């Protein structure tokens, strides 16, 4: 019994770890799309941030410096996206793709030029890596059955970015539904003309949203390189930015639901890892590839049938042009 419970906790623990990059990207996309800017460049921003975080952490031998650099690089890319889409009213999809390609190429190129290991960085260790934090009372709580063990095993013992990402959920909810900025943000993604005629600058609002999007992507990328893997590998984000967009639709652009969607996707991934090489009853041993495809397959099924109508912010994807 205890054994099973610990196994379950273990699964939940890796669920949380796997869900964090998704959650960062998903919230990032939420800000951007709620403001009316579609961002399929989440993937590229996370990848660039991951590289910058790894390189920064190595150079300064400090994980925090890695986080700072990761966020800066991601925000710069976000501003490029913003300039193209908001100021120049360019096509948001094309710009997003450009950012993804730029990030994939540039990280591999610079990585190879600087470290000569085929695009990867050296292993991050010591102060260059985010260590696991033990939350207060975690050791004491371990003796309390069920809840205490859950607290010690699943909630406690993660690196800093995990907690930052989790904190971003209530913070986003608060910003979106309780502040002036949030009210305007929700409005500008639906009808920018309404915001404009109310005397508020559409461009400034959208830029602020895109910058927040950059910060969150930076956090996600940093987590992947400087905490989860402790190394940068070419293309290590592996489509997480796109999965996050799926989670965003699944969550219907709402922050708390986004956490739920990301945790669900994380759970699927964790189960896929657990099931590799394990013979299942009736079916027998399932090929690794089939298991790995499971989260993606379920994503498609969930999006196709179980979400109901997911209506995106009405003005997302459309550049704002003043007209009479």
């Amino acid at each position: 019994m205890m054994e099973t419970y610990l196994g379950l906790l273990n699964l939940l623990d890796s669920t949380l770890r796997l869900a964090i990059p998704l959650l960062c990207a998903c919230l990032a996309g939420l800000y951007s799309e709620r403001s009316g800017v579609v961002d399929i460049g989440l993937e590229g921003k996370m990848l660039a941030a991951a590289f910058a975080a790894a390189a920064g952490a190595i150079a300064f031998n400090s994980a925090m410096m890695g986080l700072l650099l990761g966020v800066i690089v991601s925000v710069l890319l976000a501003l490029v996206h913003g300039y193209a889409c908001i100021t120049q009213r360019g096509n948001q999809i094309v710009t997003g793709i450009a950012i993804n390609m730029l990030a994939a190429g540039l990280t591999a190129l610079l990585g190879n030029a600087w470290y000569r290991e085929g695009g990867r960085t050296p292993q991050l260790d010591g102060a260059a890596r985010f260590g696991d934090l033990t939350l207060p009372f975690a050791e004491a709580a371990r003796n309390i059955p069920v809840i205490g063990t859950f607290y010690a095993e699943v909630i406690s013992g993660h690196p800093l970015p995990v907690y930052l990402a989790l904190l971003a959920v209530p913070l986003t909810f608060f910003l979106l539904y309780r502040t002036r900025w949030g009210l305007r943000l929700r409005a500008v993604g639906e009808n920018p003309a309404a915001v404009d005629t109310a005397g508020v600058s559409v461009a400034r609002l959208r830029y602020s949203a895109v910058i927040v999007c950059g910060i969150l992507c930076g956090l996600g990328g940093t987590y992947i390189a400087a905490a989860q893997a402790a190394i940068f590998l070419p293309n290590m984000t592996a489509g997480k930015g796109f999965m996050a967009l799926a989670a965003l639709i699944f969550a219907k652009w709402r922050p708390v639901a986004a956490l739920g969607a990301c945790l669900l996707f994380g759970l699927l991934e964790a189960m896929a890892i657990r099931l590799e090489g394990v013979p299942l009853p009736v079916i027998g041993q399932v090929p690794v590839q089939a298991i790995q495809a499971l989260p993606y397959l379920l994503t498609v099924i969930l999006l196709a049938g179980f979400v109901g109508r997911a209506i995106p912010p009405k003005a997302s994807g459309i550049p704002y042009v003043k007209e009479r």
Partner: protein
Amino acid sequence: MSEKAIQLLSIDKRFGAVHANRAIDLDVKKGTIHGIIGENGAGKSTLMSILYGFYEADSGEIRINGERKRIRSSADAIAAGIGMVHQHFMLVEPMSVVENVMLGAEGGTLTMRGMEKARAEIRRLGADYGLLVDPDAIVGELSVGLQQRVEIIKALFRGAEILILDEPTGVLTPAEAEQLFEVLAELRRQGRTILLITHKLKEIMAITDEVSVMRRGEMVAHRKTAETNPRELAALMVGREIAHPQKGASQAPGAPLLEVENLAVKDARGVMRVSDVSFMVRAGEIVGIAGVSGNGQSELIEAISGMIRRNGGTVTLCGQPVPAEADAAETRNLGLAHVPEDRLRMGLVTSFSAYESAILGHQDRPQFSKGPLIDRDAAIADTEDKMKRFDVRPPDPLLKTANFSGGNQQKIVLAREIETGPDVLIVAQPTRGVDVGAIAFIHRQILDLKAKGKAILLVSVELDEIFALTDRVLVMCGGRVVGERITDETDQNEIGLLMAGMEAAPAIGTPAEMRP
């Protein structure tokens, strides 16, 4: 009360080659309702956009309450005490009334306290001006009339002393328009100034104190409303006297050419948009369908013309049953022509040259074909000929469709549909966004077709149009036909009540069998 709320001094604005506003002067007295009237493209909207800070004038001066102001953004306009109710509402549909009202005027970083204040203010304004609306209702679920109230409340909430309304009655039922005018009169009583932009002469006469007329970017006349009449204003707007076509006596109707029985249409979500509609249109007859837009008229004509599938009922064209799966090409071959309600979305391709738009749907006819190719020369020659006969200006078949004015675009669609010699014509909102001169021309074309013994189904939200053209009128409300009247034996009041879904008192002289 001769203090000037607004003073415009030689306002000038160009968009490239277009001179939208030329040396405009305007005085609006405080506490009055001032009408601005003019055809589409006369520059009314540009002028109001300048006043509300959407554009900045190239030159000229704006004075508000005698004080010179620079208005470079909507925020400047709001600060100067100007509020605007746009023709297309500037509302965020998924948000609540109170959120919409406070947007941009939240009164603090956090919204909680401002929201309470806004809620109280909405209730107060509702009581003071008859602008009742539930502050916590979702705007997208409100009727158009209530949404307009929210827009007015938004402006008043920001302390607007001057209220600009751009074509406010276009989307309202006659009863809602009446209510709006009461609100405006109340606002005037309390000393606010109102600028009413409209192309409806009747409204100008009914509510304004003074009226200014614009034509081709210029302010051509100012009148006291009491000292002018609709005829003079119309002539000033167009620059010439307009001869309105006369309906002429009803002919003895011929054989039924369009018969619709128990027609039903469901939308994609399974909601009934049209239920159990039956009627017929005979040769030499114009039947009108009146109703507030969105009551199933669009679905009805789209189902008849084969643009969408019907979910029940039968349609018969010239005695031949129309199969349920017939598309627009098939109904056209059976003798139906269709001038759709939204020419930009359904009638034309705006990025096409005029001649391409003018043969759209008929491009396969032998006269425009050279084997598998389009005979460009033949199409251009044919379009040029049509343009001359339908007075399309400029008569240039190579000009991009988007560059024609609304009235001329509509004439291109009308020419294309009429010239195929249909037996049945469906015309929907034929004069929406069309200037007065073109309205008369389009009406004359429709009456000519009737004289030739064609059957015409006219769908319009403009009651004036229904009464000017039709022999019989059907009123739709909630997807059903709620009443049928002989046009000459009813009046706008009765039709208006039917449109609003109210049981109308039996009209005097209406035979019992005509009542619903």
